């Protein structure tokens, strides 16, 4: 068993469906990479870069929120937002980054802070995905 089935779906579309050798993503517990034959595991996704390794090809995408079910022969990622680099509007992401930074500096209540933090993470992920 050297490949597993990878399926990434969002409420709007099927983002990716195919085979992969390895997939990397950011979770609440840190960066993980999984190969075929992984023990059954459910992880919660944190904003980060998703990379799909298939043969010599590596595809990257910005993955923002959701969870993943990892099984020995398949990985299901249920994402709320996931974007290919060419779907990202760089200027918008940079503007969002600035906005979030400003909001974090002008410390307000907790709810506002956690929102700004999420926005910041999203913006950083988007910008990183473009590199």
């Amino acid at each position, binding site marked *: 068993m050297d490949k597993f089935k990878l399926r990434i*779906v*969002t*409420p709007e579309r099927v983002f990716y469906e195919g085979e992969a050798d390895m997939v990397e993503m950011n979770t609440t517990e840190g960066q993980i990479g999984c190969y075929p034959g992984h023990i059954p*595991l*459910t992880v*919660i996704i944190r904003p980060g870069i998703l990379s799909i390794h298939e043969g010599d090809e590596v595809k990257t995408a910005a993955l923002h929120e959701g969870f993943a079910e990892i099984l020995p022969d398949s990985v299901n990622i*249920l994402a*709320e937002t996931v974007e290919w680099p060419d779907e990202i509007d760089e200027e918008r992401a940079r503007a969002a980054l600035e906005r979030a930074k400003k909001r974090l500096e002008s410390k307000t209540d907790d709810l506002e802070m956690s929102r700004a933090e999420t926005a910041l993470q999203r913006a950083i992920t988007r910008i990183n995905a473009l590199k």
Partner: protein
Amino acid sequence: MASMRDIKRRRTSIQGTQQITKAMKLVSTVKLQRARSNAEKSHNYFDTMYRTVCSILARVGETDHRFLKGNDSGRKAVIVITSNRGLAGGYNSSVAKLVTTNPDFSKGDIDIYTIGNKGYEILHRNGYNIVRNLPDIIEAPTFADAMGLTNILLESYSSGEVGEIYLAYTFFKNTVTHVPTLLKLLPVAPIDEDGDGNVDSIMNFEPGDEEALDMIIPKYIAGQIHGALIEALASENGARMQAMDNATSNAEDMIDDLTLKYNRARQGSITQELTEIIAGSQALNG
């Protein structure tokens, strides 16, 4: 017999109505196509989400998690998804009936969250306790809307205000068949495993079981609500299309009938005039 003028006036009025129903049918046909393609696209997520949660629950084994066990509160929350506009046949009333005729729901101990003005009107008139009406969501359902509603509901569930959460919507089977459906969202019902064979392997969670379920279940519920909203929108347009199609063909029948009556009346009046003329001339000659 009605006079020619009366028949004509009535026929014109029906023709006017028919034009409206015809136009509405066309509009809802276009809207249905869009809603249906949305429903198909989101179906994948809905489906995968359902299967994933089923397999997680099957593998997690016995747990006392609050979302799976329920709490002591006897109150039930029901989300009722209807449309904002009428002229859709029995679409809205059949969803409302899921609530009003359900023997498990007694008026006193259910809290209703309506999405769509029609459902609000019907249930309000019947004296149900309506906590919130969110008519804007159904116009263009997004996942964020569903998540917002989920958070409100989970808050009242976690604080023990309500013990069970239901969802009443119309399942879009195909263009002509729409099934009013009542779904139990919380506590998540134990699911009968369809014999996958994978059940023996134990699911691991990162972070721990509790935290992971805490985060997954809200997403699961939001996914269900979002899916239901999209299905309901497709059903609404399907129901309206059918209702308007029937109305148009009924109008056609009435117009045919009235045309026949009008012609008969016209002929009758000509015959009468002729008879009068002939009778008159005979009287003069005689």
